[in-house]
C-alpha cells in the first residue's frame, strides 16, 4: 500500500517489513534532494500532489509491478511539502525470491512514477527564485 506523508521518510519499518524468509533480496531506492542540477544550486525542494489521484496511480504501479515480477513486497512512500538537501523525497522498497526482480521492479517503479503520478516539485534555487518543474514531452 502506497503512502503520502509530510514527515521525513523512515526506512527502518519499510526494510523490516520487506525482510521475510520468502525474500532472498530486498532493494530500497531513495530519491534524495540534490544540491546541483545542471550547474544550478538548489536550497530545498517542495512537493505538491493531487493526493487522491496520486494514491490511485501509486497503487496501480504497485499492482502492475507485482504482475510483472515475482515480488513478496512492493511499497512506495512519497514525501510532500519541504524536502531539504540530502533528505529523501521518495522511498521504494521491493523484495523478491531472486535478486534481479527486486532491482528491475525498483527501477521500473521510480521511472514510471516520474512519468505518471500527479506529484510536482518546486525548485528553491540558491539565488532566491523558485520554479515549478514541468518536464516537456510528458508521455500519456
Amino acid at each position, binding site marked *: 500500500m502506497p503512502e503520502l506523508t509530510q514527515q521525513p521518510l523512515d526506512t527502518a519499518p519499510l526494510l523490516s517489513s520487506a525482510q521475510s524468509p520468502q525474500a532472498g533480496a530486498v532493494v530500497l531506492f531513495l530519491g534524495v534532494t540534490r544540491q546541483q542540477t545542471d550547474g544550478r544550486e538548489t536550497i530545498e525542494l517542495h512537493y505538491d500532489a493531487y493526493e487522491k489521484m496520486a494514491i490511485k496511480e501509486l497503487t496501480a504501479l504497485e499492482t502492475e509491478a507485482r504482475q510483472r515480477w515475482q515480488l513478496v513486497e512492493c511499497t512506495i512512500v512519497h514525501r510532500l511539502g519541504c524536502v531539504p538537501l540530502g533528505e529523501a523525497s521518495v522511498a521504494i522498497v521491493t523484495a523478491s525470491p531472486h535478486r534481479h526482480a527486486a532491482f528491475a521492479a525498483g527501477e521500473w517503479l521510480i521511472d514510471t512514477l516520474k512519468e505518471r503520478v*500527479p506529484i510536482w516539485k518546486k525548485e528553491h534555487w540558491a539565488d532566491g527564485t523558485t520554479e515549478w518543474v514541468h518536464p516537456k514531452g510528458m508521455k500519456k
Partner: protein
Amino acid sequence: MKATVKLFAGARELAGQEQIEVELPAEATVAQLRAALLADYPALGPLLPHALFAINGDYATDQSDIPDSAEIACIPPVSGG
C-alpha cells in the same frame, strides 16, 4: 454546463487560484475543455498544451467525454520522485 477544474503546481501559480470554473456545452470533450480554458484563462497558455486532464481521478484523452459533475483536474507535466 459549468465545470470546475482543479489546478496544481505551475498551473495553480499561473492562474493564481486552486480551481477555476469554465462554461462548457453539454457532452463536451476534453479537447473542448482545453480550448475553453485557453480562451478564458490566457495565463494558462504556456502550460495547457503540455497538460493532461483527469476525470474522476483517471487520465483522460482529448476525445474523452466529460460527465456531469465529474471531478476534473488539470495535470501539468509531473515531476515527482
